């Protein structure tokens, strides 16, 4: 893959080959995600050997970075963070860029605005106002609905655009992200596998962290102005019968007054996207000989990284489904939550959706909820 840098105002677009005396970079690691919060291109990091005292107007915070495969951009653009400047050629600069979809979530992000400075729960209005203020997206696609949902009059704090998108996504059972066309949109989880893993290549451990079989949503009913609870599923699932019942609370009073059907959809959506099954304890390290297309052709890892950001299901052959006694499947279909790949490497790391946090960074992220703030 090649790095291209564009100034924030769009007036200069320069290939990485023309930056610095060597025009080279190394250890380009790409991460894409599909899960809670912004999906798609998550992060890219690389190093660049540059002489002592080097400076370049495009190697500063705010530059748009594109990962190109020839003339084709892989995933959405990314925004460069202020680089870690090195001291010379044997101490290269370290640079990190985050996907443009993540600009609207987390602390000090972009907050919902109706163009006059007041908050809004209308997704289209919030996006258009952010675009007018310089958000580096190309726009929104047809899946972003118009009209407000929820009631800002009773909302008690400013909410980021990302949080609004996540809430709406939970109600309709979809995930949101900025895709390769640089448009934000909502997409459903894949239901059939794109890639197949050869039997014997991987093993998946399971854990019951965050295990829950019932989601209960507490909301302010718009019709009666009383607090009510919506829950999903209506009757015990096969997982509950096998592994036991646990309940998960999802307060939705922050949305203000919402109607019953939205509250029920919210409960259904949270259950479908993140609850109702055991979690996984390990990620998968695979080569292109173990990861095949449906036709048996070895996958190209650069394409796999891109596909995970757009929602990708992988069928792991030779592993018994936890619910074997209910389904009889000798394979497990997992939606991949994260792909991490170093450009040129022959191994890719795939983490299934629902990977229980086992290292410090993942635990911190799960507690602070950075992705969902």
């Amino acid at each position, binding site marked *: 893959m*090649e790095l291209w840098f*564009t100034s924030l105002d*769009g*007036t*200069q*677009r320069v*290939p990485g*080959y*023309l930056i*610095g*005396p*060597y*025009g*080279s970079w190394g250890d380009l690691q790409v991460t894409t995600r599909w899960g809670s919060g912004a999906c798609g291109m998550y992060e890219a990091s690389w190093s660049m050997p540059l002489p002592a005292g080097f400076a370049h107007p495009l190697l500063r915070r705010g530059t748009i970075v594109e990962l*190109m*495969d*020839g*003339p*084709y951009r892989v995933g959405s653009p990314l925004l460069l963070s202020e680089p870690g400047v090195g001291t010379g050629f044997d101490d290269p600069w370290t640079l990190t860029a985050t996907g443009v979809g993540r600009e609207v979530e987390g602390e000090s992000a972009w907050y919902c605005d109706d163009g006059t400075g007041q908050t809004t729960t209308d997704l289209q209005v919030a996006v258009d106002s952010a675009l007018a203020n310089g958000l580096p997206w190309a726009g929104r696609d047809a899946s972003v609905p118009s009209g407000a949902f929820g009631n800002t009059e009773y909302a008690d704090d400013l909410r980021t655009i990302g949080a609004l998108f996540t809430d709406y996504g939970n109600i309709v059972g979809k995930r949101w992200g900025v895709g390769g*066309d640089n448009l934000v949109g909502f997409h459903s989880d894949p239901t059939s596998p794109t890639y197949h893993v*050869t039997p*014997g*290549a991987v093993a998946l451990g399971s854990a019951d962290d965050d295990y829950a079989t019932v989601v209960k949503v507490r909301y302010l009913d718009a019709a009666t102005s009383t607090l009510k609870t919506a829950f999903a599923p209506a009757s015990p699932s096969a997982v509950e019968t096998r592994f036991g019942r646990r309940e998960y609370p999802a307060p939705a009073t922050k949305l203000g007054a919402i109607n019953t059907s939205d509250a029920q959809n919210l409960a259904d959506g949270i259950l479908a996207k993140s609850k109702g099954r055991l979690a996984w304890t390990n990620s998968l390290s695979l*080569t292109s*000989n*173990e990861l*095949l*297309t*449906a*036709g*048996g*052709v*070895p*996958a*190209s890892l*650069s*394409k796999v990284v*891109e596909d995970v950001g757009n929602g990708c299901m992988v069928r792991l052959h030779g592993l018994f489904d936890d619910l074997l006694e209910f389904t009889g499947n000798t394979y497990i279909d997992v939606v991949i939550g994260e792909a991490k790949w170093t450009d040129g490497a*022959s*191994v890719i790391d795939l983490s299934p959706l629902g990977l229980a946090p086992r290292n410090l960074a993942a635990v911190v992220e799960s507690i602070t909820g950075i992705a969902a703030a």
Partner: protein
Amino acid sequence: MRLLYGDLDLTDYPYLIEFGTDTDAPQNVYETLALLLQDGEVALSSRASNRTLQFNVLIEGADLAELADAEAALILQSERPMNTITIDPGDFGAVGVYETFRGQVTLARDDNGEMARLRRYTVTVQALPFVRSATETVTAALLASGSTTTTLDTMGAATGWTGLADGAAASVVNDTGPPTTNSVSSPAALAAGVHTLTLQKAFAATTTSTKYLTVDWASASSGGSGYFFNRQPILTATGDGVALPPVSTIPIPGTAGYTRSIFKVAASSLAVTRFDASFDIGVRVGGTGPTLKLLIDNVSISDVKPSLGTTRQQQLTVAVDGSARTAGSLLIESTGTVGLGDVLAYTFPSTPETTTYSPALRQFRTAGNTVNSDAGAVSGSNEVIGLGVTLTIPHGQLPPGNYLLMGRMKSTTTTVSADLFGPVETTISVTTAYQVYALGRLILPGRDTPIGSAATQSLTITCNESAVVYDEFWLFNLDIGRLVWVDCLTGTSAPFSEGAGQRRVAIEPASVSTPRPTLRTGHATDDSDLFTPRGTTPGSVRIRGWQTPQFTPPVANLFVVTTNVGDAAVSLRHFARWHTNAAS
């Protein structure tokens, strides 16, 4: 042997090279992966790391002051951040050049040596892994295209043809087909291994200007069971005992299963012409080998440069000297007065899997709408995409990997936003002028099949706007090849003019002297006005895609499109690279 450090001759007074020079070797970088093998690992290696040269230099002199002066001259060379060590082995051996970095020089001080006015130094210096030849090789650009084609034999009869199967005489069979062919077959039940079928005839052809020998051929296997092909068959040609370098190999539209191989005849006449088809088969236990057959449909000589559709789209092979991979400078130029237009330069290695791979897709079109002749098209035709254009590509011509689908399209009415569906889904803005688009990536072929399979890959591209027509689609395998796309505009070519056309493109790799790749366009034939194009309006970039080309000996494949100019000259300038001893 003579050894020069920079321009300092260390084999001439006051220097002496002691015996025991260690030229080390390129250090292959391995990655070992157990994969799914029950035992052992696959050792992958895609690059080599620097070598470390070490040699001993003796300095003699009349007094210690002279010794110090000679040491200073040596250190001036070793301290250079980049330098060369040239070794001329003598005895008709070729000169080899090591590209070196800053060297470490150590004096082994010896009191007896001081008294004898003799000092001994050990020089240790890192160098690039592969030795290069002293001079660059420039492959002669293919001749400008003419229009003369002389058919040498349409295979109406077997007259004059002799056949060999693995060197033994075999009969030549004439078949009326269609197409009419002469063929030679091997005996039945061949054993596993490499087999060669030969067809030979003596022509009396004059090739002073018609340099391209074209042969349409096919191979077939019959009988046997439990056998498989280890690689695709390879056809080579010999003219009057001289091996003819291959120029191009393309499938023939309209004659399914046949390939057109084009060879260059350097001599001015051609008499005894011999075609050898080499097969490599394996036979499983309990199986029997097949009968193999080589069929030739047509032989002609021509001065028409090989092209796909028009000469704005060329597929060429270029000989790469040396035994190791090298980075070459690719020059694409036109002698006309206008810019090259959009230039697509795709380079890919020549392996048995890629012998018949051709990125241009109109040649594989099997169904669609009305095809119209179009002088502005690189394929020579345009066609509405509409409800579907179907392309059917044999698996043997689609080496597995990640492909980028690109297309050249325009609207026949007004600018429209068009949705394309099929192998990729994308939305593009199409204007009334032809533009090139990168549409999306996909892994092909859709099914894994063994070598020699008769399977085909079918792709149907549809468009929701009936005004959109396509000139050509391309599938570039970005796993095996590298693509460059630069817009050289179409106006009158002029030096240093950003908004004019540019009629030359020079693509250069990183080298030790210019340690980053360069991509420049220009006008003058002496390369004096090359510059990196930017574009006249803010944000308009003329370099659309840039992956540095790579050339692996003995032969590299080039696919070049120049949308505004026909018959562009393509040449490759490179240093041959070798392991340790240069052979030329």
